[in-house]
């Protein structure tokens, strides 16, 4: 069983999961300050990152783009919870932001903490006293563990099945490599590298499907953020009301009515979605409205998906082109609204609808769900947690490397090394080792022995 090491810097969400006002994401370990510092831009450039002081600023993603306005606190090892350098980010509580923050930390060199690892480190470094340590022991008491594990098994049975299948494929590929290595003198017949590569490819397909299903799993588990965007008076608020089935947003003929963000939690074709109606995008001299437009742009950039509305009565104009150029086409649906008044031309590629009458809205819903990867086509929704996804992605990377070295038929020991790392990542999901599994595979397949 792989043991977590103390020298890694670990990261995890430390507050409760799910949408909340504030979320606490914590880094602990020798590189906590370094990673945290790289991901943080103080509001005032002059701010020093003084220990034990809350500092306002922005959390940056791995590319240096701001993710959220946050509070940053650094605890030196002498007075932190874990007895190591600890950095905490207080974020806005959306699961999407939390996940993006964790992604940035992983990219920065941290790894996801194992369950209970902060506490483990705390008492390893002597930070917890006897009574606290006992409290930890209570937590992991067998009775509750059994219950926890039973629940876990119920919840992840499907994932375990998949992972088991993957491990069987890897054990099979490893058995071929290892038989070739450990029984060089037996009449096994030459091991065909293509057979090993074939097994790796099959494993890779399963892995790819799991990763593809992550978006759906996450959407199902946590909800996705969909921003409604467009020029003023394109009908964003009407569409929100139509989708939410209630008059939530103020709808008015005067352009620029929505200055702040209006949100609605809705369930679209079984997928929980947080709809955000943003301010109309336009150039304005009006200070408050301008702030609204800036906020809208930020929100759209941070959303899982943007639905950009074209005002059908005006048609697609130069401003729309400009706004759309700033959006990620992969995460944007361009919609023709007010189709009841003015239908789009043949060349308009997106869906057309009328928020007012509801015509075409169902098609849009289907499109949203599809784009979120949350539909049936998005793969099986098995990988819910960032930790699981990280492990599967690690396995995927090692499989690629294994394929590259196995193909030449010469470096089976290096292929085995990569396959074992992949298998270890999978074992971390279900918690077992593989050596005996590989030997079993060898001896069931080959007649070997001296």
């Amino acid at each position, binding site marked *: 069983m792989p043991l977590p*090491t103390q020298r890694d810097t670990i990261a995890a969400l430390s507050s409760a999961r799910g949408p909340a006002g504030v979320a606490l994401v914590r880094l602990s370990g020798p590189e906590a300050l370094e990673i945290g510092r790289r991901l943080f831009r103080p509001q005032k450039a002059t701010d020093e990152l003084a220990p034990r002081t809350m500092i306002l600023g922005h959390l940056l993603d791995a590319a240096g783009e701001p993710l959220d306005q946050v509070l940053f606190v650094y605890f030196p090892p002498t007075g932190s919870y874990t007895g190591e350098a600890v950095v905490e980010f207080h974020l806005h509580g959306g699961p999407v932001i939390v996940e993006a923050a964790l992604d940035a930390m992983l990219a920065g060199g941290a790894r996801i903490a194992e369950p209970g690892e902060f506490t483990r480190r705390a*008492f390893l470094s002597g930070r917890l006293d006897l009574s606290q340590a006992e409290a930890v022991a209570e937590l*992991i008491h067998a009775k509750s563990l059994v219950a926890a594990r039973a629940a876990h098994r119920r919840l992840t049975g499907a994932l375990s099945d998949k992972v088991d299948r993957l491990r069987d494929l890897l054990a099979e590929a490893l058995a071929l490599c290892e038989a070739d290595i*450990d*029984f060089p003198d037996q009449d096994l017949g030459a091991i065909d590298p293509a057979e090993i590569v074939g097994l790796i490819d099959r494993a890779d397909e399963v892995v790819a499907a799991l990763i593809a299903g992550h978006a759906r799993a996450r959407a199902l588990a946590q909800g996705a953020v969909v921003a409604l965007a467009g020029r003023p008076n394109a009908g964003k608020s009407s569409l929100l009301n139509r989708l939410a089935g209630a008059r939530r947003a103020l709808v008015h003929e005067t352009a620029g009515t929505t200055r702040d963000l209006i949100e609605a939690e809705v369930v679209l074709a079984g997928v929980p979605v947080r709809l955000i109606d943003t301010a109309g995008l336009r150039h304005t001299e009006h200070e408050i409205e301008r702030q609204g437009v800036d906020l809208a742009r930020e929100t759209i950039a941070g959303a899982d998906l943007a639905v950009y509305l074209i005002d059908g009565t005006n048609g697609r104009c130069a401003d729309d082109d400009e706004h759309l150029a700033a959006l990620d086409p992969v995460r944007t649906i361009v919609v023709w609204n007010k189709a009841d008044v003015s239908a789009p031309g043949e060349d308009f590629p997106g869906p057309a609808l009328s928020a007012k009458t509801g015509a075409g809205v169902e098609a849009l819903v289907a499109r949203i769900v599809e784009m979120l990867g949350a539909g049936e086509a998005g793969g099986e929704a098995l990988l819910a947690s960032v930790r699981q996804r990280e492990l599967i992605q690690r396995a995927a990377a090692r499989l690629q490397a294994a394929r590259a070295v196995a193909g030449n038929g010469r470096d089976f*020991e290096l292929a*085995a090394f990569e396959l074992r790392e992949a298998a270890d990542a999978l074992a971390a999901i279900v918690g077992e080792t593989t050596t005996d599994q590989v*030997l079993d595979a060898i001896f069931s397949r080959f007649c070997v*022995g*001296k």
Partner: protein
Amino acid sequence: MEEHYDLLVIGAGHAGVEAAFVGARLGLQVCLVTLAVEAIARMSCNPAIGGMAKGHLVREIDAMGGVMGKVADATGIQFRRLGTKKGAAVRSRRCQSDMDNYSRVMRALVEQEPLIHLRQDRIDRLVLDGQRVAGGQGFSGRVYRARATILTAGTFLRGLLHIGMTHFAGGRLGDVPANTLSEHLLELGLPLGRLKTGTCPRLDGNTIDYAALEAQPGDEHPSFFSFETPPHAVEQVPCHITYTNERTHEIIRSGLDESPLFSGKIQGVGTRYCPSIEDKVMRFPEKLSHQIFVEPEGRHTTEVYPNGISTSLPFAVQLAYVRSIPGFERAEIVRPGYAVEYDYLDPVHLYPTLEVKALENLFFAGQVNGTSGYEEAAAQGMVAAINACHKILDRPPIILARDQAMIGVLVDDLVTKGADEPYRMFTSRAEYRLLLREDNADLRLTPLAAELGLISPERGATVAAKKVAIENELQRLTETFVRPVAGVLDWLQSRGSAPIVNKTSLAELLRRHELDYADLAPLDEHRPTLDAEIVEQVEIQNTYSGYLDRQADQARRLREAEAVELPPDIPYRELPGLSNELAGKLAAVQPRTLGQAGRIPGITPAALQVLMVHLHRRRAENDAK
């Protein structure tokens, strides 16, 4: 009649002799007791030393001052390097031995060692001093008192030989078993189990038609096991290869009703790693032919060992199936094949020092611990003796780590997972295989051996100097650059190697498959003159540097978990949060470190956390006192 020694070694097989030499190296008086002095280090099975993974063990034994490699080199009649087309981590050495000569040379070494006192006797009982073992008592009436005792009984404890439905007592064909000692150990409460192994019918080489067989000669330049054996020419004897066929298998199937294995007569668990021919035929019915490796047993005997057809079928069936094999049509069997059942101690009852948990100052090593193979036995003999001697000398235990030696993997697997079938070493058992190569066994282990006093300080210094030379050269290659100028580009093209675009270190060029160290000489003006084995290390370490770094990083994690020690008196069954099953496993193994606890099959991360909580509570209580 009493004799007094520091160390008593019971059994003079491959484990026993290594153990005795360790004692002598450490300056202790050693008594080596064997049932037959002419059978010292006898090869009971096939006449070969080494092979994949086993060759690694021999190199490690040699790097630590052991004798197996040197005697194998001195008595080898054929040497082969295996896996030469593969990477450095999965190459190994093997030799065919003149088995009688191996035994003779080993006996001579034993006799020449003044600190080893050789005695022929059968130890029937241990001498007990309370729960402490203080020596052994012989069938002859002699009492051998010692401060530590190592039992290397091989297959001799209640050994039972099977040929067809006939069986008789014996440790090996022609040798008496040690039944009294076995009963004595059971009386002392050791939970002995039962295993089975087997061997082939030995053939008269004069009756074999070699012209019909495919010959396999040794390597042109023999590779020796010992780091101290200088290169020299050896007159080599070839092995031969033939195959079983459907007729062979038919004969075997027709004889199964008289098979002690298939009739249920044999109770002991056999190994999947060394199956009998009847096992192979039954388990792999789709395989119509099995390879037989015909091994010569020595220069002065015509007897051969047809490796691959071990059996316990009746003699008549053995002869019939042997004669169905090409080249063996007129073969005569000199000695029949047989199976042997014997008592063993599941090594989960041993500490990683190989000391018996229940009986202080008694150590077990070799096949009696549920392993198979001469090399596995010898390695354990060394480990048991180092630790027995350290106990006598009041020095700390020496436990080789899993990232340090194949021997470390072997012992850790045995004492952590136990053995419910005979355990054989494979390179795939080592998770840090890329680090544990046979080429660097000296770099890994000789400094330690020097520190322990197992080898001369001079040998230690030589290896230390080699290490520095390798590091210096690796550094130099990293810092020596060539530029993409005409001369260099032309040269690369002439070698069929891609052109370089920027200035490039020699270390980087050396990583290219098509270039080796010697090739690069024209680009390397200031190259020092280095020994071939230093160049070999430079090439390997440079080529695999990325992988070696990653593996070293994995090993670092291992070391951290190994650094958390678990005291021997943890009341596992009383710890809140441990299931009965896991508590039972932990109590049985008594892991020495948190890392070892994690390797016990079935132990969960949550169970490890419970152990940590307990450790901290203890520490807090101790601080309070």
